[in-house]
């Protein structure tokens, strides 16, 4: 068996299995994230949320999926057909390929590349293309306005996200995501994680990820109130489902990114017996759920930002703050001689 996996065909099969082992939980997570979202918002509104299909409404996501699958895909006249079909695919694929570099445990990562952080950043910055293409290809004013809004918004918040990532990298001294997690390992458990020394950056990063995934209160690209549904008005059935899956998969990805960069990835919060019984991937999943709950909580709590307020927050507050943080963190590290050395 081991010899078979050493041959080229075997390696290909092995990688395919590994990809399936990552993608299947992610897609299941997406399905149940939609369920969790409706349940959480229901609880905030003091409603029950979905409770009809299956026990506790647990089969609701499957029913929704089947419904979307059975509907008709409509391609509007005057649309740019190829771009119209390509756009949801790009959104969906991009939200999945980023998982290749997320470390689930020590050594448990599909592609342990040296520039993992940059890869994640690159993939998340590409997410805008699906939306922009969808907005343009639909040949509809509403969709186009949604696409334009989203392009401006995602480019704005990427800048401060990049600077926040740089402050983390200054503490770590490596662009490898496994190294980022290992740098947070220490005697003090969760007090060694980066969210504590970099708390303001943690907040900025989290808010930027909310904006980057076009979630409430920054969901202006699909503001129902003024743009009907924004960039995806013209999409139906599976093409719409792909946007939907892509958006939620992106949320999980961003939560994973936050967990790895700031919340110690697969590390348990305390390095003592009852906490170390749970394996690393479970801890990572728990942290992802914790961050995701904030996404849902924010959606249920805050009203939508106005567009100029959104731009002001991105360019006039987050950008100077994160830029200053890069200078301060670098200065402190040099002044106290704490620069991480080459490994």
């Amino acid at each position, binding site marked *: 068996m081991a010899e078979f996996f050493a041959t080229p065909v075997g390696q290909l099969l092995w990688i395919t299995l590994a990809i399936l082992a990552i993608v299947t939980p992610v897609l299941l997570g997406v399905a149940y994230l939609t369920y969790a979202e409706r349940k959480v918002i229901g609880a905030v509104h003091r409603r029950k949320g979905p409770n009809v299909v299956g026990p506790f409404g647990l089969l609701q996501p499957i029913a929704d999926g089947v419904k979307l699958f059975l509907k008709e895909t409509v391609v509007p006249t005057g649309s740019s057909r190829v771009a119209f079909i390509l756009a949801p695919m790009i959104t969906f694929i991009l939200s999945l390929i980023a998982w290749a570099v997320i470390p689930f445990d020590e050594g448990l990562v599909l592609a342990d590349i040296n520039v993992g952080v940059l890869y994640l950043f690159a993939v998340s910055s*590409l997410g805008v293309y699906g939306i922009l293409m969808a907005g343009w290809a639909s040949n509809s004013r509403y969709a186009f306005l949604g696409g334009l809004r989203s*392009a401006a918004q995602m480019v704005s918040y990427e800048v401060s996200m990049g600077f926040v990532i740089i402050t983390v990298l200054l503490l770590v001294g490596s662009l490898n995501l496994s190294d980022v997690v290992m740098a947070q390992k220490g005697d003090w458990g969760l007090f060694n994680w980066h969210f504590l020394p970099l708390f303001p950056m943690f907040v900025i990063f989290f808010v930027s990820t909310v904006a980057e995934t076009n979630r409430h209160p920054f969901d202006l690209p699909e503001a129902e109130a003024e743009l009907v549904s924004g960039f995806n008005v013209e999409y139906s059935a599976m093409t719409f489902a792909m946007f939907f899956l892509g958006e939620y998969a992106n949320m999980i990805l961003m939560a994973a990114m936050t967990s790895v960069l700031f919340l110690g990835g697969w590390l348990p919060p305390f390095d003592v017996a009852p906490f170390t019984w749970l394996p690393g991937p479970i801890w990572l999943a728990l942290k992802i759920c914790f961050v995701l709950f904030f996404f849902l909580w924010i959606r249920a709590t805050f009203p939508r930002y106005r567009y100029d307020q959104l731009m002001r927050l991105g360019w006039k507050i987050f950008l100077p703050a994160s830029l200053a943080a890069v200078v301060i963190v670098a200065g402190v590290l040099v002044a106290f001689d704490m620069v991480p050395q080459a490994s």
Partner: protein
Amino acid sequence: MIQGLAFYLFAGIAVLSGVMVISSRNPVHAVLFLILAFFNSAALFLLLGAEFLAMILVVVYVGAVAVLFLFVVMMLDVNFAEMRAGFLNYLPIGGAIGLVLLAELLVIVGGARLVPDTLATGAAPMPAVDVVHNTRALGGLIYTDYIYLFQAAGLVLLVAMVGAIVLTLRRRPGVKKQRIEQQIARRSKIEARDMPTGGGI
């Protein structure tokens, strides 16, 4: 063998999409093909072992520059027929630039081919990939050996940015702006009072 196949695949797609950039009728499609060309160049960098450059190419060019480009092109109301009319007029200039670039490439590649020693005379040769990660190697080069040139490049970009802002900044009278500091600092005239039952204020 797989490396060779991958090279020809990426290089082929890059060249093809380059041709499509200048030949497609719709400017938005042209930009999308440009993005495809960027991607394949990034893949070529990866094949060379230049992982940092590959990622930066995607982050900067695909993730930021091309987005703004697409943004502008989508909003432009372009007359395609008019654009095609000027094609022959600009052909000599474009062709001349292409020829110059080709000649330069030939000089470099030909020189390296004929006299292999020239490759070693680079001012600060990069160490091999298995010795130092190329992120670290590039950082060392840019931030220690060539820090002044790097800063000068940054200044040039700063001047360009200031120039763009100066050109587009207009002061219009009578524009209402939200001043958040004032809104927060404002003390409301509304106050809470206890009302006696049956009485007024």
